[in-house]
């Protein structure tokens, strides 16, 4: 990738990061209406992020050995026999 292209992408990344950091504060006001008794569907296994957390971590680990990027769930682990 050429330097100019990369700078464009970096600006895009910067904007996305800024949007991500601001999003919780903005949406926090909008979502005050979700009371505890309304969260039954959100707690369902097909909705909960936690249901897939370990599965996603194993996938990221496997894909780190096949692709040049990482991330999406948390930290990098050390060591991988399949790399």
């Amino acid at each position, binding site marked *: *990738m050429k330097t100019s292209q990369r700078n464009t992408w970096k600006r895009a990344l910067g904007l996305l990061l800024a949007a991500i950091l601001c999003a919780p504060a903005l949406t926090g006001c909008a979502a*005050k209406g979700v009371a505890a008794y309304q969260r039954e569907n*959100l707690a369902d296994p097909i909705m909960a*992020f936690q249901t897939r957390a370990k*599965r996603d971590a194993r996938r990221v680990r496997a894909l780190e050995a096949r692709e040049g990027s990482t*991330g999406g769930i948390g930290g990098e682990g050390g060591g*991988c*026999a*399949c790399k």
Partner: protein
Amino acid sequence: MQVTPRMGRGLVAVTLGVLAASPAAAQATGDPSAANGLFRLFVDSKHVLVRSLVQDFSIPVAGDVNLSLHWNNEHVTVPGVSAPVGSPEAIDAITTASRPISGDAYQDYEKVRNELEGQATRGPVSVGYYYSTESDYVGQQVSATYNRDLHDDQLNLSFGTSYGWDDILPLENQRSTTAASTKNTMHWNAVATQLLSPTSVVRVGVEYNHVSGLQHNPYRLVYAGGTTVPERHPDSRERRDAFVKFHQYLSNRSSLQFDYRIYDDDWGVFSHEVAGGLSQYVTRGLYARYQYRWYRQSSADFWSNDYTTTQGIDGYLTGDYRMSPLSSHLFGVSLNADLSVLAPDSPTLRRFALTFDYERYFNNENYSADILETGVEFRF
């Protein structure tokens, strides 16, 4: 930003101290005891075979602390080279898996990896230690996370950090000699999870990794300037990414999931990842999930299809296809059964949950892989 190993350890120590002193850690977790067993099979088009046996335990211990333990025993079989050792044709045979070339290189090479991880959670604070060992690699990591609910539990903020230090101990190798080396990884992340409505939730996060030390395959050679030379990558890499995940519950007892991740590093690799999923209940306690993932990345600055000199680009050479322009696809399907719902009257069966996952991965390098997982969970 340069993060030295000493700085990294200091930062993690300070974070651990702050977290341990947190007064907000006084809530009981209430997590029940559970044991998970999982068998995972990975087979790829290069005939690399990985068999993993994973065990996870979660138990409440003294006070309000929950302890989770994870053990993974992994057997890896790397096929023998298919061409004379040292020839350009032999290089591709070891592209995706590291193995030394010694003795009879035409024979399969087998290695075993064991991974142990412990994590203690008290209220919103978690600390963990990770240890991984194999014949030529020892990895260790300490980690800490803190999360807090805000706005009447509509918003959860989580902050995590980890520091990893790996010892790389290359085995005897006929084709190259690499001295024992180290790799250190400093990681930070911040993640926010926000309820949007009674049927939708979004999670956003940013991550940063600084990696220093040996980051190429000590056994791999690169064909350059008419000869073969050892692979050489820079010894420092800054990696950052941001992601967003959105889940929407639908009225027919199904849910849609959407993931997007953007990644950038100072080696020149830039990538996008888009994934979508649909989870659908077949009956109460049994649901299926279908998923698709698309990934695309640019090449590293020092990657080339054809190095004309042994100096490569800026002194670096790579034979690793992960440094090349790459795109990939992944399709997956899974079945998840909760026997506490399917067989609530059976005192034994109702303690179990079963999972079955199959994924098919392929990329533009003519590489493909099949990944199969079967898991059993037992709740005490």
